[in-house]
């Protein structure tokens, strides 16, 4: 963080889905195809995610190309952070994981990414990462 006048940084854990993609392509080709940007664009379009900032590529490793994409549930506004629960965020991520898994098994994810030159997709897997139960409960203890 910086000493800039308006630098107020918020750091938050979120309900998340991790998507791991493995492409049989050269990493240089991936970057030449503007892979990171196109991947986010395509995934957002495919799963109807309007706010692209909730989709983040956290790593791109060679071998051939392994990309880890994290999806975050929407955060409550800062003004409501001490009272809001995350149960809706968990439900949203569960639905998203089902959608992604469906598109992996049907081949839709692979064919959609292939349209942008990101192919072939060898494997894809999702992991749901919920927040701890008290954060996702509907009721408040206090």
């Amino acid at each position, binding site marked *: 963080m910086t*000493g*800039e006048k308006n630098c107020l940084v918020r750091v938050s*854990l979120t309900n998340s889905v991790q998507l791991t993609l493995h492409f049989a392509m050269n990493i240089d080709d991936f970057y030449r195809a503007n892979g990171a940007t196109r991947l986010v664009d395509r995934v957002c379009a495919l799963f109807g995610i309007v706010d692209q900032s909730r989709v983040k590529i*956290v790593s791109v490793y060679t071998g051939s190309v392994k990309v880890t994409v994290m999806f*975050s549930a929407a955060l409550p506004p800062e003004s409501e952070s001490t009272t809001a629960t995350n149960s809706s965020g968990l439900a949203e991520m569960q639905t998203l994981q089902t959608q992604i898994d469906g598109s992996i098994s049907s081949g839709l994810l692979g064919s959609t990414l292939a349209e942008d030159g990101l192919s072939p997709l060898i494997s894809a897997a999702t992991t749901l*990462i919920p927040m*701890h139960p008290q954060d996702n409960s509907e009721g408040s203890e206090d």
Partner: protein
Amino acid sequence: MNGYYCTFHEFAVLEYESIAPDYNTRIMWPVSLKYDGGSWTSLTNGYKEWEWSGHEPLNRRIGRFISTVRLFQYYNMSWASNPPDDMRFQLQKRVAGGNNSDWIVVRMYYPFPNMVEVQVNGVTIRPISLLDNSGEAPVSTSTCGSNKFYYFNRTI
């Protein structure tokens, strides 16, 4: 009596607080701050007990912290318990306009595998993607909120 004379000038005050639902019901301090190459560790406590019912404390201590830090350093911040799920940070401004050239980098480990989201004034700041052999760009010290998320060891 011993006395010590400090020759450093580049100090600042780091203000940070929990804004999670348990911000005043869970004790997660003292918070430990140490910068790379530094020879000391700062331990910071939360606010004192504030709400009482007669002689009985209600055990609602605010998770709000004020620590002295050395500017232009990379800090490790660690907590006595799980860090808050939702926090905010800022460097205290000593002049109204702030000072754009001041910076610190804070690393924090979360014992949970969830995505850690960084926002500045409500706008999400995407993490710098990790690459092989740590070949990715370093955290920008001139950009507020610049961050990397080491998801494999849950550190931001």
